């Protein structure tokens, strides 16, 4: 898939919000739902690498590749939470290493803004988290995701999670 097709894909998913909101994530399982937005530049083989986890965990985990983390929008993050994601990660390239120069800086600002919005409705800021990929070592998206899955869970769940569809 081309870089821009990925972006269009993400926008399309979240613009058709009303249709996918109930189907995006797993609402039946008691386990945490995780959404991972990540910069494609981190793993050129991400398309293949992430399928393993997707098969293993089903709709508990959703990956959203971006042409650059700077293309993340507050709206994507809000909709992801509203679709049942309990924890949303945004994975960016290390500082100074952004292919488009400032994308990861922009991502940081938008995440901070969205954290303010979710705090207004009583959700913890930690439901959204910025992850800066480690410098130097190349990492595959599934390895990275496994690391994220092992992390401490936030105390709150998405208000949508566990509700009848």
């Amino acid at each position, binding site marked *: 898939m081309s870089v821009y097709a990925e972006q269009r894909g993400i926008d399309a998913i979240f613009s058709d919000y009303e249709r996918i909101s109930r189907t995006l994530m797993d609402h039946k399982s008691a386990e945490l739902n995780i959404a991972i937005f990540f910069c494609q530049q981190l793993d050129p083989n991400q398309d293949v690498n992430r399928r393993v986890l997707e098969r293993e965990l089903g709709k508990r985990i959703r990956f959203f590749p971006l042409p650059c983390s700077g293309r993340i929008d*507050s*709206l994507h993050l*809000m*909709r992801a939470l*509203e679709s049942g994601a309990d924890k949303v990660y945004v994975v960016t390239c290390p500082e100074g290493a952004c292919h488009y120069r400032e994308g990861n800086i922009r991502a940081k600002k938008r995440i901070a803004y969205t954290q303010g*919005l*979710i705090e207004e409705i009583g*959700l913890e800021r930690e439901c959204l988290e910025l992850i800066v990929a480690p410098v130097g070592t190349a990492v595959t998206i599934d390895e990275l995701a496994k690391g994220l899955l092992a992390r401490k869970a936030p105390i709150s769940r998405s208000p949508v999670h566990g*509700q009848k569809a």
Partner: protein
Amino acid sequence: MITAERKPLSEIKEMIAPYKKILVVGCGSCVAECASGGEKEVGLLSSQLRMDAKASGKEIDLKEMTLDRQCVYEFIDQLTDVIGQYDIVLSLACGAGVQAVAEVFPKVPIVPALNTTFLGETKEAGLWIENCRGCGDCKLGVFAAVCPVTRCAKGLFNGPCGGSKTDRCEVDPNVPCAWQLIVSRLEDMGRLDLLRKVHPPVDWSKQQGKGPRKIYREDQRA
């Protein structure tokens, strides 16, 4: 453009509290430009309200819509088919848009999600600054396109005042002294002569009006 900022969420929630079915309507013009009331902001606010309702066990039915301009009746008419299904309109337009919708649908409750602030320019991405106060008697030609009504804290027409220091306004060191700017621009243009004569007292009736001001154009009427 007209700028506005979203009201505190608590204030919005209080206004819509008695209602279940809410039509959230944004505007694609000025408020979209200043990232407070456009399609995206309608989405963000609606997501917040829905998640908040779920968390508190409240039932709520929100529909998201955005009109190209909420102050023009032709666009407002697009609400006609839907509005009957909702109890209240939560408008993300400026005050002009909110009131225009109320004129078209006077029986439907409508509340503003935004505080309309000022007429201004986008100085940088994410920074909007006031530059016009609609005085109705524009003198930008005399003042090197720096408006003394808007940009001088005291609205002086024969400035600067004694408090202007290192080209900052005495009221706020982050605000440039408009008069310093006027003088230096006119100096660069070789037109300091424009400031030689005393500028007489201003006709403020053009700004105040007698109640709301209006413009009437017979040639534009249907």
